[in-house]
Every structure is written in structure tokens, then in C-alpha cells.
């Protein structure tokens, strides 16, 4: 068995005296997409930020062969990329500037083309729709990693504000990344997407409710316990 690329053991995060995350474990091996699901406020974003080393945490943590809490920002960035749920940019860059800032204009242009946005490269960010901006930021996140092999991609709701076609393109891009030897941890509200992942982590109120293969983790009981009466069937 290969060494896991991302591993959290009994991870806990406390912010302002409140436990946001408590005893959450997660395993992502090379080639795997791990979906993190749960209702709003379940701790999905906090889990991803902890994996990225952006927030302090207790418990065991290894991402791309190192503990992100003790490694420098520069070291972490070499083998781990993170995309926040809501992309924001203070300045009105050209789309292709994002590739230069990510440090790999060619990889960025290629990803942009695969996401169907090649003709947007010379536009300003402010001239894009919300979905196009999100996709451009995702392309930038992909481009920050020189080589998918041995790298970890942490995406917080990459499908949010994307139309169905572009969602499928982003899903393909994530697969492309993992097939090249990387691992992806993806927070999502899309249970259909979660079912296509290699493994699923279900969070509720900061705790691990279920984990494992999609069929084993997303049982009717877990769905009912997590989402209650309004439980999605997630066909």
C-alpha cells in the first residue's frame, strides 16, 4: 500500500474558545479524491483550512509528507494547493496575470483552455461572470502545483456558482490531477459528486459522522442523521 498523501488523526480545531472541529480523521492516498460533505457549519471549511496549515489544530496531521503546521508557508506551497470557497481579488488583474502570479503561465493557460475559458485570458477579472471568475481562480490553484505527483489539492466547494457543464469540466480536471499521482480533498454540497469520489467524509457539527467508500458512508441513516427531515436522497 502506498503512503497516504494527506492524513489527519483525531484532528481538533478551537477558535475563540469554541470547538469547531473535534476528533476528525481523514485519509487520502495518491490517486484518490476524498469528498467532505455535511450541512452548513459542519466544519468542512475549517477542516480544509487545517489541512492547508492555515489554522492551528491539535491531533495528527501530515500533508504531502510533512506537518503543515510546522513547515514554512513556502515549503507547504510546493506540494499543496488550496482554493477558498469564495474567490476574491482586490485588484482588477487580467485573467492571464493569474498564471504569472501562480508562477506557471503555461500550465495556467492549458488548464484555462480545458475549462473552456481560453478566450478569456486577455479580459479583466471584473469583466467575468461569477462562475467564470471562480473557474479562473481554480485554474490558478491548479497552476500553483508544478507537478501533481505527490501533491495535494484542497478545494473548498469548487462547484459553487458554476454551471453544470463547467462543474463536469472541473470534476474532470480534479480526476486528471489525481490520476497523475496527486490526491484531492474536496468539500462539496453536491452529493452526486461525492458519490463519484473514492472516499467520503461526512461531518456534522464539527464531528465525524461517517467515513469510507461512498456507498458505505452515505447510507440513508447517515443522510437522515446529518440533514434530518430535509435529507437529500442524492441519487
Amino acid at each position, binding site marked *: 500500500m502506498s503512503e497516504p498523501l494527506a492524513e489527519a488523526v483525531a484532528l481538533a480545531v478551537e477558535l475563540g474558545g469554541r470547538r469547531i472541529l473535534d476528533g476528525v480523521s481523514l485519509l487520502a492516498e495518491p490517486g484518490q479524491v476524498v469528498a467532505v460533505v455535511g450541512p452548513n457549519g459542519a466544519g468542512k471549511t475549517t477542516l480544509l483550512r487545517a489541512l*492547508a496549515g492555515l489554522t492551528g489544530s491539535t491531533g495528527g496531521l501530515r500533508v504531502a509528507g510533512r506537518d503543515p503546521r510546522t513547515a514554512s508557508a513556502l515549503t507547504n506551497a510546493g506540494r*499543496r494547493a488550496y482554493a477558498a470557497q469564495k474567490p476574491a481579488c*482586490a*485588484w482588477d488583474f487580467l485573467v492571464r*496575470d493569474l498564471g*504569472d502570479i501562480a508562477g506557471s503561465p503555461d500550465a495556467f493557460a492549458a488548464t484555462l483552455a480545458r475549462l473552456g475559458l481560453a478566450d478569456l485570458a486577455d479580459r479583466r477579472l471584473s469583466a467575468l461572470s461569477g462562475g467564470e471568475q471562480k473557474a479562473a481562480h481554480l485554474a490558478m490553484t491548479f497552476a500553483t502545483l508544478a507537478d501533481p505527483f505527490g501533491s495535494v489539492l484542497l478545494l473548498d466547494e469548487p462547484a459553487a456558482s458554476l454551471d453544470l457543464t463547467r462543474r463536469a469540466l472541473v470534476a474532470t480536471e480534479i480526476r486528471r490531477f489525481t490520476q497523475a499521482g496527486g490526491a484531492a480533498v474536496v468539500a462539496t454540497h453536491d452529493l452526486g459528486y461525492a458519490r463519484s469520489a473514492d472516499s467520503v467524509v461526512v461531518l456534522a457539527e464539527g464531528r465525524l459522522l461517517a467515513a469510507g467508500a461512498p456507498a458505505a458512508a452515505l447510507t440513508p441513516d447517515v443522510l437522515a442523521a446529518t440533514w434530518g427531515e430535509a435529507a437529500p436522497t442524492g441519487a
Partner: protein
Amino acid sequence: MTPTRATLAGLVGLVALVAMALAVGAQGLGWGDGGARALLRAPRVLAALAAGLALGVGGAAQQGVFRNPLADPGLTGVFGGALFGIALLLGVAPEAAWQRAWLLPAAAFGGALGTSAVLVLCGRGGSSARLLLTGLGLNAFTAAGTLVIAARSGESRELLTNGAFGDWLGMATFELAWLPILLCVGATLLLLPSARALDLLAFGEDAAHAGGIDVGGARRDAVLLTALAAAAATCLVGQVAFIGLLAPHLARKIFGPRHASALPGSALLGGILLLGADTLGRGLWPQAPLSAAAVTAVLGAPLFIWIARGRHE
């Protein structure tokens, strides 16, 4: 116009402006016999140019750190802090202030650092409103403090009042100005390498950190160097508003928003704007020159209102 052509045009314009600035003034038009009049005006011209560089790049850096196009060291109270620092020194030890070249810049730096610290603690991560309201409070406090000291100390009263009106360029001699000029140029050059960190910071602190930037360190460096730029420029000119706002705004339009071009572009335009304003003030009224700060405010305030109008929050 491409950024390269704009840079060339800016540099040619700057050289022409320097030549013109050396030729106008109370002693009459022209550079004088053997450049005698030009030599007399050189300290003032160099001081205006250096202060303009520092004000322009300082504005761009502060805007980059706070991710906010309205974060201008004039509006956020950093210049106010620098002048207050000078006022404190002149109020406490008026004789000592002139004995050592580094004392006035050091006092200005201390004041600018103090207001910067309050700004970082209170204004960061919040809305534009919080940043600008904090700046408003700092400006009011430091202006009042400077006024109180000016009123209590007879000998420094006129000096401090002139400083508050940005009317110090006329006093520039090589003896007084060499250190602040060097500090302005030094702070400008030292801020240029922060371009990459500021580019990534545009996407938020999480994104910058995830992108490999030591966010705390990058912010600390930029805040320290902006305070140094503001302090050194204040020593040369006194308080001058709007350059730190206008130069970066124009630079982003002309050279593009990437900091690798916006930072040097802001410095270049800052130098042109401040030296241009001073030259205009001296050229129009050679016997009683209008201060550079007054000229930039007259031209800059309407533009500021126009920028503010275009923002939707």
C-alpha cells in the same frame, strides 16, 4: 499606450520636468551663469522628487497590504503620525533636534510607526469604512497633538504650522535634506521586491499564505517601509495629501495592476506629481510660491472624489 512606452514617456517627462524645475523660481528664469541658479534650486528639486517617489510607492504598498485602493498614508493618518513625531521632538528638545541629522527623521519614523501600529491593529481585515474611520481618528488626534505642541512652543510654532500645510520644501538645503532624500530613495527601492507578496495578498491572506507567502512577515516589512517612506517624505515636505492615492491609481491604469509594474509606476508618477506641483506653485507665483501640498490638494481632491464615487460597497 503600452506600459513600456508609458514608462519611456514618464522618464522623458520626468527629465524635462527636472530641467524645468531647475529653471523656475524667485531668482529669475533660467539655470543662471554656469548653472548657479540651478545649483541653488537643486536641493529643493531633489527633495520634491525623492519625497514624491516615496509618497507614490508608499501609497501603492499600503493599498496592497490593506487590499484597499483608498488606503493612502495621508488618509490613514501615517503622515499625521510622522508630523506629530517631529512636533514631539521639537516640543521636548527643540535645540537637540537640529544637532544630529538623524534625529528629525527618527522622530518622524517613530510617529509614523505608532499610527501604523494602531492602523494594523484596528483597521485590518475589516471594511474600507473601518480602515478609513480609524485613519480619520488618527488624523484628528495627531493633527490636534501637533497643534497643541505648536501653540505651546513659541519658537517652533511657525515651523510646525508650515509643516502641517506641506510648505517645507522651500527650506531644503543639502545639509538638511540629504538624509531624508537617501531614506526616501532607500525605502522606495526596498519596497519594490515586495511586488510578488502584494500580488498574492490581493487574493486574501489565506490565498497568499497557501501560495507560499509568509503573510505576517510580508505585511510587517511593507508596513515598516511605508512608515519609513512616509517619515522621510514628511521631513522634506511636511504633510501632503493625495499623492499616495493619485499616483497608484493612475499607475494601475497606465502600467497595469501587477505590483511589479504598479510599484515603480507609482514611484515615477509620485515623483512627477509632487515635483510638478512644486514647480507649478513656484512658476506661477515666483515671489510667494504656493506650497506643493496646496497645489496637489487643489488638483487631487476632485480626482479623489471621482475615485470614491466610482466605488460600490
